[in-house]
């Protein structure tokens, strides 16, 4: 008979532990994380419930986690881990879940704008090595339908010297390209 301690744990909780070292089984559901989380009310379920769903290991619950808004609305403010009596390190766990959710094409539609923004941001860095804010806004706005608000801010930002017309280019852009090729590009086709 195979030793249960040596079998690969294929549950989502098992993968979380393997990739981030976070053991969801430590959580005893006190709820402090959810009480302190600034975006609990925007989430479909707050951090402690996210953990509970991973603890059960039911495929239905794991699916709900990967398709949740919660993982995308998390701000990585680290309040949950600061207050957790069991030191369950939620933010890196959520980082991992976001990566999985993207990889498996399960990202929640409500997170569309957030993901578009992240992509536009990385796109800017990939090309120039640094963030080009004007380019980012144009790129993001063309990816989302949310046209108004920042186009309104842009002229006054420009007047205050806060927006540059031209991007800053670092010298070794090949190195940056290579970093993207070996990481993000490698995994998301």
């Amino acid at each position, binding site marked *: 008979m195979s030793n249960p301690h040596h079998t690969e744990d294929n549950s989502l909780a098992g993968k979380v532990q393997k*990739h981030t070292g976070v053991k969801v089984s430590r959580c005893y559901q006190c709820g402090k994380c959810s009480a302190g989380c*600034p*975006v609990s009310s*925007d989430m479909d379920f707050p951090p402690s419930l996210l953990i509970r769903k991973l603890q059960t290991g039911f495929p239905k619950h794991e699916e709900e986690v990967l398709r949740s808004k919660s993982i995308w*609305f998390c*701000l*990585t*403010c*680290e*309040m949950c*881990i*600061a207050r957790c009596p069991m030191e369950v*390190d939620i*933010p890196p766990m959520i*980082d*991992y879940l*976001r*990566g999985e959710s*993207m990889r498996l094409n399960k990202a929640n539609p409500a997170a569309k*704008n*957030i993901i*578009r*923004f*992240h*992509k536009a*941001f*990385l796109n800017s*860095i990939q090309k120039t*090595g*640094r*963030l080009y*804010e004007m380019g980012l*806004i144009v790129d*993001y706005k063309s990816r*989302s339908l949310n046209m108004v*608000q*920042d186009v309104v*801010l842009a002229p*006054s*930002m420009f007047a*205050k*010297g*806060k*927006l*540059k017309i031209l991007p*800053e280019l*670092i*010298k*070794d852009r090949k*190195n*940056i390209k*290579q*970093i*993207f090729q*070996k*990481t*993000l590009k490698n*995994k998301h086709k």
Partner: protein
Amino acid sequence: MKLGFYPGCSLEGASREYNESVQAVAEKLGIELVSIPDWNCCGATAAHNLDKELSLSLPARNLALAEEAGLTELVVPCAACYSRFTVTQHELLHDNAMHKKVNEIIGKEYKGTLRILNVIQFIEEYIIDKLEDNMKFEINKKVACYYGCLLVRPNKILNFDRTEDPQTMDVVMKKLGADSIDWAFKTECCGAGFSVSFTEAVGRLSGKIIEDASHRGAEALVVACPMCHSNLDMRRPAMDKYNGKKIDTPVIYITQAIGLALGIDRKKLGLNRHFVPVKLDNFKPYVKKEVVVENTQIMEEI
């Protein structure tokens, strides 16, 4: 004195007044800040939200370049970049396999020898002792020091100040003659990287922060993070909408406060670049306190 310096993208763009004030204060006190040659973006929220290896590799390239340039201490004023750098250093020094992998990805060797300082540590170690001899004014105002998330959390890695009621910024502001108040939102999140993609959340979170500070009589909020600053300053319309009233309490960087106390020109500190006008003035001229000299004679007699 020479120190390594990583400005980061915000300080070169939308938050350039932060950079201007850091530079102006350093110059006034004879500290030379040397930028990492050919530095790149740290990857910010976007990288760690989407890909762990990317989120470690982008900061690691900067750290490796800094080491190559012979720097031993690195000042990182942006709290978000600082957090990415410290987390990267921590992860790579505690995970050999990942360290090797990241070195391979960046095509450079990161050794892990750098000391990384956030702006408060920089002030504590290199500026605070010089204040008495250089201060021209006292910042005789009621201020609310706002730390946000990234300076104090995760405490296990940063090991910086108390997570719930930190004091380091308050100590600096008191030294400048300010009355730094006790208030409830010191370490609450401002909405961080959602400024553009989820502005309502920023309006709510930042709105509560500014409301509490102004309610308790603060004449300014003092911050040390460009992300907090641009949310609290630029997103004021969304915050006013959430609060149902207009609040015009300005938000200044701690380095701008120091600059004002040192008598540096307001424009040089970038105070003209804020969306919420910074009207603070009428500072009290600073008189160096007499140092009480112990009666050495009595000491000798004993």
